[in-house]
């Protein structure tokens, strides 16, 4: 009755193997490394970059333990921090010739020392939260109402010029919060205006306001369009943050959307919060200017003196370009930039949409300068870069501009992104901030580790003394539980925080509950005179229902914490829930396997080693050993 079929043992062995494999990376520790990732949306880290890094290291005479390209970044591992620093300097010199214009982010990082075969199985050490490794955490709230107001403001201008273009007379257009109110002369004009809006601006909805003799209509953004707008604003802000954080040289920044209007930024290892905050809050601007095509300017491109009223900027390929100082348009006039294809040539293009004011200026400028070049410059960190400088082929009206010219699809995507992401789509505010010093992180790891270790050892010791052999089985089951817990956390790459480590300790303390239940039950059966084999069987069987019930109630609490918790509570809840699940497997299924293996085959089992089974009837303790 106490035998497992082979498949059950097979499950246990496989689970143990998986547990060991995925827990292993945690034991190898971390090696100092240099990580190279892209510093700009237009730069890709590829095998060419890898070659450059390898060459740079060879030239500097630094031996790397390994250099590999993994998921868009290059990681070079070293045996000491000295070599790491030397390598960083060498790589930086090779990849970033101009320090004011970094194309790559070269950052110091720690990389798991685990061997390649583990990495190829996607086995990685647990992902430590900021409180364990130090760093900064920000939560930013995106002001969606401001984004919407901004949009409505530009729509107001659009409407004004649209009505003028179509000769619809109006008695005033005004923005009222997030709606635009238009007064019109008569019913016909009203009808015409309505048709115009629905034909030209599909994102808007109109509503008549019957107000005595006046003909008015209220234009507002459709709810679904507003939602899309907000999504885009959030995405754009995230992209912008990415670009900016690259500059900080953080190895593994986390920039995530949280909820509908929040962004979480985590920068492990960063201590300089002031700089980080400065960078997060900065705005980038876009400017459209004319290219100076005079002979002096041509000469200046070759290295001559820049003529008066002009400035030298670099194109993305690094070629200098002389651009007039006079600004035609700024990013404020740009409402959208999307990658697309040209209707006729099927070439990749970027479609820009300008607001009404921008469109009017653009039309005038392009009419006057056909055949000349115009430069679109992105200013970030107070430094400009020419994104593109196309030749004007014809007058461009209507505020829809297409930029084309020898772009690949990827380049079109990147340019559109850069144009859009140059600035924040909506203002943001820091609503939560946490900084944890690196020494505190290390201390927290030690504290969490000590709590788990000592608690675990004392419990196992007690179990062994109190329940003898069964106690030992329980102890082993508890160790296996810990193994599974660590393995699953490593596998899921769930963030481990200090509350998470507390949850781990607590999970072990609660997991032993199941084994105590079983052991007590077996003792009770023995006390009532059952044969050892029957007692084991009944003990496990009866305890199971109770264990299941009690774990479910604990799980309900865990799930609630997971669903409603945030920050530290979430870290706790994840480990808590996983711990409950693993404990059901290890404490019941696995420990039964051990017991079956040990006692199951013995047909004439006289006694089991489960400590003292005390019988009140006999008046004397029977040592069932």
């Amino acid at each position: 009755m106490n035998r497992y079929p082979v498949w059950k043992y097979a499950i246990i062995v496989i689970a143990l193997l998986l547990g060991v494999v995925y827990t292993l990376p945690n034991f190898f520790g971390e090696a100092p490394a240099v990580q190279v990732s892209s510093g700009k949306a237009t730069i890709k880290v590829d095998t060419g970059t890898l070659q450059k890094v390898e060459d740079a290291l060879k030239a500097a005479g630094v031996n790397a333990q390994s250099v590999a390209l993994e998921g868009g970044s290059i990681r070079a591992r070293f045996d000491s921090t000295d070599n790491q620093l030397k390598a960083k300097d060498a790589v930086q010199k090779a990849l970033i010739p101009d320090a004011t214009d970094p194309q790559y982010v070269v950052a110091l990082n720690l990389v798991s020392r685990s061997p390649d075969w583990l990495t190829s199985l996607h086995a990685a050490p647990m992902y430590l939260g900021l409180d364990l490794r130090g760093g900064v955490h920000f939560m930013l709230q995106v002001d969606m109402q401001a984004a919407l107001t901004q949009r409505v403001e530009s729509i107001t201008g659009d409407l004004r010029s649209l009505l003028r273009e179509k000769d619809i007379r109006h008695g005033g257009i005004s923005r009222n919060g997030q709606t635009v109110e238009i007064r019109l002369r008569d019913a016909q004009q009203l009808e015409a205006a309505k048709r115009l809006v629905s034909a030209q601006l599909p994102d808007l909805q109109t509503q008549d306001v019957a107000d005595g003799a006046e003909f008015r209509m209220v234009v507002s953004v459709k709810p679904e369009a507003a939602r899309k707008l907000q999504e885009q604003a959030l995405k754009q802000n995230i992209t912008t943050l990415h670009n900016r954080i690259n500059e900080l040289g953080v190895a593994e920044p986390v920039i995530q959307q949280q909820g509908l209007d929040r962004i979480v930024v985590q920068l492990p290892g960063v201590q300089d919060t002031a700089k980080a905050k400065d960078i997060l809050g900065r705005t980038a601007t876009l400017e459209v200017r004319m290219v100076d095509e005079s002979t002096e300017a041509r000469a200046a491109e070759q290295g001559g003196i820049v003529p008066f009223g002009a400035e030298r900027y670099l194109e993305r390929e690094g070629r200098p370009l002389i651009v007039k100082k006079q600004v035609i348009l700024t990013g404020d006039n740009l409402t959208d930039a999307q990658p697309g294809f040209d209707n006729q040539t099927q070439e990749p293009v970027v479609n820009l949409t300008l607001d009404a004011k921008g469109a009017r200026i653009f039309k005038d400028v392009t009419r006057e300068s056909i055949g000349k070049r115009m430069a679109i410059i992105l200013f970030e960190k107070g430094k400009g870069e020419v994104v593109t400088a196309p030749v004007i082929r014809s007058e461009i009206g209507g505020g829809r501009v297409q930029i084309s010219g020898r772009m690949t699809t990827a380049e079109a995507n990147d340019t559109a992104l850069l144009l859009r992401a140059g600035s924040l789509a909506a203002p943001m505010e820091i609503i939560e901030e946490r900084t944890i010093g690196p020494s505190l992180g290390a201390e927290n790891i030690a504290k969490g580790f000590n709590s788990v270790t000592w608690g675990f050892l004392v419990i196992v010791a007690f179990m062994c003394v109190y329940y003898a052999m069964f106690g030992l089985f329980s102890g082993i089951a508890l160790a296996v539980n810990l193994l599974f817990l660590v393995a699953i956390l490593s596998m899921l790459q769930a963030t481990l925080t200090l509350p998470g480590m507390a949850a781990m300790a607590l999970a072990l303390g609660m997991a032993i509950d199941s084994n105590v239940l079983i052991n007590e039950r077996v003792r009770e059966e023995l006390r009532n005179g059952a044969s050892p084999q029957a007692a084991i069987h009944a003990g496990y069987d009866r305890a199971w229902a109770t264990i299941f019930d009690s774990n479910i109630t604990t799980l309900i609490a865990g799930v609630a914490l997971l669903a409603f918790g945030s920050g530290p509570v979430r870290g706790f809840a994840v480990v808590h829930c996983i711990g409950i699940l693993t404990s059901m497997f290890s404490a019941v299924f696995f420990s039964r396997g051990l017991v079956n293996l040990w006692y199951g085959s013995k047909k004439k089992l006289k006694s089991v080693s489960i400590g003292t089974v005390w019988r009140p009837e006999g008046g004397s303790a029977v040592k069932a050993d």
Partner: protein
Amino acid sequence: MEFFKIKKDIPFMKHALVFNAISFVTFALAVFFLFSRGLHLSVEFTGGTLMEVSYSQPADLNKVRATVGTLGFSEVQVQNFGTARDVMIRLPAQKGVSSAQQSEKVLTALKADNAEVTLRRTEFVGPQVGDELAHDGLKALAFVVIGIVIYLAVRFEWKFAVSAIIANLHDVIIILGFFAFFQWEFSLAVLAAVLAVLGYSVNESVVIFDRIRENFRRYRKMNTVEIIDNAITSTISRTIITHGSTQIMVLSMLLFGGETLHYFAMALTIGICFGIYSSVFVAAAIAMWLGIEREDLIKPIKKDRDNSDENSGAVV
């Protein structure tokens, strides 16, 4: 080894009234302190800035207080954190002042005073987040309570569900009462501990109820009081040992976990101690007052019973 050599069933239910009275008094006291003193909520809930700085020498709190005071913050709290060299500074949320500048300003001022000071940790929480966290906490509590009641009502019977949840909510209130009385800091981690304890000590009631149900099937001649007494007596050794084991872990956290885990472990300790008490003395007693009977439990789970009877035939 055996700690519990109990010859006869202990007549717990005979004293049920006394236990319930004790419970009620503790409960009333806890509620009283909750209202009169209130919880000392952490910055996570109230919003504001928390800074932990470390000096190389034991810090002079008065000096720190004076330095921070000159910056014009109202209601600044300065206290030691763990050791004499670590200082925790709590600044209230200020309207209009962005998070960041606050901690920068304080650190600059402290650095000017004593260059050896280092920043170990800062935490800023905006007021809107604080409100949300408080709401989410309450939602989580409601979710746990409703979830457990539904589960127990389905698995056992509504009288058990109600008594278990009353018993364990009484634990929660008592934990909160302790935090109010001693003015310990109530943080998110403590909230997590409270909810975890709620789930955990319901376990305890479940174990006893399980045994009561089983006893109703096995001992047909016993009356309800005897059955409850027997159920508690036969599970008491397990109760003490499992709670003891969990407490070992919590104690280890209390000893090695440092300041950050201190109140978390504290909440668990109180929760575990009162968890035993309420499951043993309160939950079953309430179930008894609510009038559980054999019929409540035996009928709906006929199939279950047949199975267990088959297995237990040799044993009884």
